């Protein structure tokens, strides 16, 4: 049967005339009605209707009646399903069934453009024109696996690339493709990984996101008239696929949120294929309103027997092992619409067991059944065709031995589109008590055990004799010994009884067994083991919170307060904070309802601001595959789970400027975050902050140290770098001008938008730079185009052009003492920051390093050593000065009434090597408290131990374990240029 699904959720009520085929038949045509009547069954029509002792009639692959008083047509084959259950078969919305496997060719050296020279997208990972149904060819081996797991219908698409093309709904039977395809074009598919693409761009997740956004804008333009300018099969496909169901493959809970944001921008209601860890951010995911497709490939049990090896596993891995089966229950509790997929399971026979495990972990059976049947049907817009067993639905159903969610229940048959597939033969029932007559002797015969594997016992008076036997289609065979007589019997079934001949020792005898009574199974002991799992912590990491810290009124008394204001350093001073702001600084402040912290002997400063950081980033900090990647945004890929956020809080850092790396002259748009540990990426973003963008000069952008193959991408010299800028700013000017006239059809160009914002003074530059020549170049260029370079970062030769920088109005954010690691820093001196400062340039010190960021106060103190800077001015280099450079000094950077309560309590003079941050407060919330460390460590240790014991029990109970292994988060610096989005 084949229908064309023209739009979402449209049910084609007209059934085709039967069997009109364009294909000739080799022999006599063999048309059958396929009429079957299934009787006496328990029929689970859908999640709310179940009939017992009911009948279902199908014909031509369609359910024609179902109920307790359905009429059985005369021409129907009658199948008695006494004691058995009928369920709708499962629908899998994330398969790649029957599609050619994509090779992963390797590419040597840079590849800047698509190597497909047809009129398609410039990017090899953008293949919306790929239509799964055109390449679909049934694969019986795969189909069988689906059927064995209870699946009858799948949405198949090619799991390759970022825009993957359309998916088709196909039956997993063994008929030809023309009959297997239910709907040709159902869905369009997106992902953040570029699959088999050998093209360099994108190499980061932010690049993938930018590529999707730009392509969608391009499609808009194409539809509005851009097609007159170029023929583009890919864009055409996007436009023509707008009515299809958009599905986004998210590999992590945070990717679910990112996909949703892209959807919001383009008004695309993505269905999101999840990864199984959605429970870790379930509220935020619920708020997206997206429907989810979730896998059930729970983590395998690691072999934690060796305590040293077990240390490899972070707490998050342990907790994930424990909690993953509860994912579905969490989603259901949060009222998220979701369905299951078998994708991700190495062995599809584990699909139903895994779903049953989700039920064990708190998902109701009703919800589980919905997630296998009617919900995927609904998500795919075919709820009037499949997913339930109402009259008129496709005859896709399962025959089972009992309730689907009982562990012992066996799937006997999977009917796909009216075609029968036997998964496992239902064993005949022979169990019971029989009167056994063997020759002249009389016994009782008890057949017990299970129907599939019966166990035989001979009853003699009050004794029980053991016996061996088997019952097959060929008959019964039974052996036992009594009174030194060996009985070897063979026979046949007749009605409910057995009869036959056999030998008693050497003599042939007759025997019979007459059914006397049914076998009563002892009711299975109800399992009382309730499953206890730990709590979700935020973030899902060591040192995570069950509840993030609350805003409170805090009074720090009698401390040395480094105001960074005219008042200077105030001794024996109190600081009162409330509502997330600094309320009062002075002596003898009294406050009601405030947490009082004795600051005697301690120091209070504004929170440290790291102008140059690469922490908390998912999958790649550089999109250095093009000379400009102004379109990418760090804000798209903030990873709120990075442990380095917490570690930096322990060094007094409250705000970090997350930068793109330095692999190209124009890097990406940066993101300022407050280190609100435990909150979401969106909640960490610094509110109301003007945008910045990373630029870079020198060896990195000309790929000097990338090896001999990297000599292709422009630019390769500092001379070329200037031209990259001259070109992009020229184009941005023209772009902005063109946009002013509404008559122009201007293709939205995310790259030029960002550059145009610089020209309009709405976006600021922080530029990675080292040597004086290139610093001068950029300032000259900026003067020509009428903007100011806000910040030069690193700027190790800034001391050579400090006067020019001052004149231009640029600030500096430098390293305290790094040098000699490459040629362009061979003239770097630790007196650089001091010289810049003395020359009147606003100067900050930054980390560019997750470790150094924990001790930026000490880096600031080095200016005292190397340049004789005063302690107050030194501290400003990591607080007030970066705040000024980032245009947030109205909110942070000093201890002043009305500013944000982002403050640090230090054990000692903050510029001393002997000082430790004791408390780090952001918005009046204590995010780090050193006095709580041992309690937190102990809590983590107890939680680890609890889960490890469960793993140990699992191993002892025979679970197959895998060697310990973990996938740690990457720590990035400027120069990380790997490809982080390769593969599926």
């Amino acid at each position, binding site marked *: 049967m084949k229908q064309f699904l023209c739009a979402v959720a449209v049910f084609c009520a007209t059934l085709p005339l039967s069997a009109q085929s364009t294909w000739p038949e080799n022999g006599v045509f063999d048309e059958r009605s396929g009429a079957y009547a299934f009787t006496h069954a328990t029929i689970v029509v859908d999640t709310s209707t179940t009939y017992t002792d009911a009948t279902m009639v199908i014909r031509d692959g369609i359910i024609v009646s179902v109920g307790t008083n359905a009429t059985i047509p005369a021409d129907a084959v009658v199948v008695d399903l006494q004691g058995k259950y009928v369920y709708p078969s499962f629908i899998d919305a994330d398969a790649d069934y029957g599609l050619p496997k994509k090779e992963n060719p390797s590419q040597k050296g840079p590849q800047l453009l698509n190597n497909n020279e047809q009129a398609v997208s410039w990017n090899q990972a953008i293949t919306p024109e790929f239509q799964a149904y055109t390449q679909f060819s049934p694969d019986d081996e795969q189909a069988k696996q689906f059927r064995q797991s209870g699946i009858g219908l799948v949405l198949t698409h090619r799991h390759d690339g970022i825009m993957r093309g359309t998916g088709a709904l196909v039956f997993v039977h063994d008929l030809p493709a023309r009959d297997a395809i239910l709907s040709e074009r159902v869905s369009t598919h997106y992902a953040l990984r570029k699959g088999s693409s050998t093209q360099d761009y994108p190499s980061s997740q932010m690049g993938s996101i930018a590529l999707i956004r730009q392509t969608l804008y391009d499609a808009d333009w194409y539809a509005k008239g851009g097609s007159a300018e170029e023929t583009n099969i890919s864009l055409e496909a996007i436009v023509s696929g707008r009515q299809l169901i958009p599905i986004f493959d998210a590999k992590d809970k945070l990717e679910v949120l990112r996909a949703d944001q892209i959807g919001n921008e383009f008004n695309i209601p993505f269905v999101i294929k999840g990864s199984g860890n959605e429970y870790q951010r379930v509220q935020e995911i619920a708020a997206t309103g997206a429907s989810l497709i979730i896998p059930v490939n729970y983590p395998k049990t690691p072999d934690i027997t060796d305590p040293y090896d077990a240390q490899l596993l972070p707490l998050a891995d342990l907790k994930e092992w424990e909690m993953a089966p509860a994912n579905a229950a969490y989603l259901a509790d949060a009222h998220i619409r979701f369905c299951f997929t078998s994708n991700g399971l190495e062995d599809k026979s584990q699909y139903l067991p895994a779903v049953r495990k989700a039920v064990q972990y708190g998902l109701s059976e009703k919800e589980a059944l919905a997630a296998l049947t009617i919900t995927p049907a609904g998500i795919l817009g075919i709820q009037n065709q499949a997913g339930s067993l109402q009259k008129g639905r496709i005859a896709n159903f399962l025959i089972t031995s009992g309730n689907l969610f009982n562990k012992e229940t066996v799937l006997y048959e999977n009917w796909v589109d009216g075609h029968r597939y036997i998964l496992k033969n239902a064993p005949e029932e022979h169990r019971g008590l029989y009167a056994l007559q063997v020759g002249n002797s009389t016994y009782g015969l008890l057949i017990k055990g299970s129907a599939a594997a019966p166990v035989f016992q001979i009853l003699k008076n009050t004794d029980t004799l053991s016996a061996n036997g088997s019952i097959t289609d060929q008959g019964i065979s039974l052996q036992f010994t009594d009174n030194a007589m060996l009985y070897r019997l063979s026979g046949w079934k007749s009605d409910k009884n057995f009869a036959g001949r056999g030998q008693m020792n050497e003599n042939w005898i007759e025997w019979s067994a007459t059914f006397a009574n049914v076998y009563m199974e002892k009711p299975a002991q109800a399992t009382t083991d309730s499953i206890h799992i730990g709590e979700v912590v935020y973030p899902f990491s060591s040192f995570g919170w069950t509840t993030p810290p609350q805003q409170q009124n805090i009074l720090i008394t009698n401390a040395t307060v480094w105001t960074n204001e005219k008042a200077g350093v105030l001794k024996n001073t109190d600081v009162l904070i409330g509502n997330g702001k600094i309320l009062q600084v002075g002596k003898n402040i009294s406050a009601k309802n405030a947490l009082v912290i004795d600051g005697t002997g301690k120091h209070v400063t504004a929170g440290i601001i790291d102008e140059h950081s690469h922490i908390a980033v998912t999958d790649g900090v550089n999109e250095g595959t093009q000379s400009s990647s102004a379109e990418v945004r760090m804000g798209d890929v903030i990873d709120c789970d990075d442990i380095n956020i917490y570690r930096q809080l322990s060094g007094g850092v409250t705000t970090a400027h997350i930068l793109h790396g330095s692999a190209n002259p124009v890097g990406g748009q940066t993101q300022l975050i407050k280190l609100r540990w435990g909150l979401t990426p969106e909640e960490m973003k610094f509110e109301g902050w003007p945008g910045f963008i990373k630029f870079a000069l020198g060896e990195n952008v000309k790929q000097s140290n990338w090896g001999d193959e990297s000599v292709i991408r422009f630019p390769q010299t500092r001379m070329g770098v200037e031209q990259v800028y001259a070109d992009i700013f020229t184009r941005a000017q023209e772009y902005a001008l063109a946009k002013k006239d509404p008559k122009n059809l201007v293709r939205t160009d995310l790259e030029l938008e960002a550059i145009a914002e610089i020209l309009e003074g709405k976006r600021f530059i922080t530029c990675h730079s080292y040597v004086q020549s290139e610093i001068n170049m950029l300032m000259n260029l900026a003067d020509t185009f009428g903007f100011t370079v806000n910040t030069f970062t690193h700027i190790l030769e800034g001391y050579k052009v400090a006067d020019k920088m001052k004149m231009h109005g640029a600030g500096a954010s430098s390293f305290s003492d790094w040098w000699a690691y490459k040629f362009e820093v061979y*003239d770097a001196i630790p007196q650089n920051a001091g010289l810049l400062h003395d020359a009147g340039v606003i100067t900050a010190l930054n980390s560019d390093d997750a470790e150094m960021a924990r001790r930026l106060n000490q880096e600031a103190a080095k200016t005292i050593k190397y340049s004789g800077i005063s302690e107050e001015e030194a501290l400003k280099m990591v607080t007030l000065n970066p705040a000024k450079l980032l245009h947030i000094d109205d909110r942070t950077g000093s201890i002043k009434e009305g500013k944000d309560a982002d403050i640090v309590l230090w054990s000692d003079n903050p510029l001393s090597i002997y000082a430790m941050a004791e408390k780090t407060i952001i918005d009046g919330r204590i995010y780090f408290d050193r006095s709580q460390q041992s309690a937190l460590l102990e809590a983590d240790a107890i939680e680890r131990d609890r889960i490890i014991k469960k793993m140990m029990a699992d191993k002892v109970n025979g679970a197959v374990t895998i060697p310990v292994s973990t996938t740690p988060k990457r720590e990035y610096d400027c120069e990380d240029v790997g490809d982080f989005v390769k593969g599926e």
Partner: protein
Amino acid sequence: MHAQQVPYVITGGTLHIGDGTIIENGLLIVHNQIIEYAGPMKETSYDANTASIIDATGKHVYPGLIGLTSELGLKEISAVRATNDIYEVGVFNPNIRSLIAYNTDSKVIPTVRSNGVLLAQPVPNGGIISGQSSVMKLSGWNWEDAVVATDGNMHMHWPDVYRYNWGTGTYSINPDYTKEVEEIKAFFAEAKAYCAIQNHTEKNLRFEAMHKVLNTEQKLYIQTNAAKGIIGAVDFAQTFGLQIVIVGGRQSYQVLDLLKQHQIPVLLECTHELPAFDGDPIDLPYTLPILLQKAGIVCGLTINNEDASYWNLRNLPFQAGAVVPYGMNKEDALRMVTLNNAKIAGIDNRFGTLTTGKSATLFISEGDALDMRTNQLSYIFIEGERIKPENWQDEQERKYQLKYGITPRN
């Protein structure tokens, strides 16, 4: 170079001996390359007319800090391959000697020296046995002139117990660990057999270079971080009767008893690092030396991470000082980078403390040398030779101060 004959008499300073003790208002006399006296102020027999008197009242005197397992002098600019003499080809290279490539004219050396690091041990890298190191003083015309302990130690990498796979991004148990350990044992067994006979007619230079390790004249530095790696290395050392130093030792706190039992010192490669595991205490890199010290294990500290153990060696005093707030006293922190490092290098008979009779390799700082605010060197003596505590970076600063009309503060 001629050693000075005129004694330098340093009076009134606080002597930080380097063994954990301190002498306030001390006296220290430098004469003929050695410390003629170090102790409390007393009447002495120097000739006030010929001696050069240095009033160190309010100042601090320290033994020269020792930077072990470093790249100093072997590397000038990390990213410029031509300036790197670190990695040699080969798996077992005991015959490689670091001092050969040591460049006394490296621009980096004076910048390290200015912060109080006066001795360094450049080491070769690569392979399993990387080769032998010498200890160099951070002055001298050429390597022959600069070396203070020739070919004193041998350096080896222990196989990884756990391995990071860059392709998959996973960190897991190294399946080849046992095999790799067996390869090391086989090499040592063959070397031992070879060394049992003198005067081979056909010499094997690799095995010839193994004599001193096998007869414990040289210490074998074994680089390993995992607890299981340390256990394996100690077992291996017992098998062959070797004197070893555990280098790295991030998880050494988990095998304290074992290290204590065999009296094996640990050389930590830095305190400025992140904990190895997400769930580790956030301050573990700082508390680790304290855990070792409390267990009675000799714990040295150097800077050998992040591909920067040459220029970054100037931060050695601060990486030691950084331990103090976590519970180590300042003099013990100093001892890690002076006496303990000297012991680990096998040069503690001549260096590592301000002790009468030891080499006059020391410096005077205006204040606490472990705190960057007060690490201001006014005098440096290396083997009795007085060296200016300045370097080209100070000159560069002055040049640009002049350009901008900035008045120098100090």
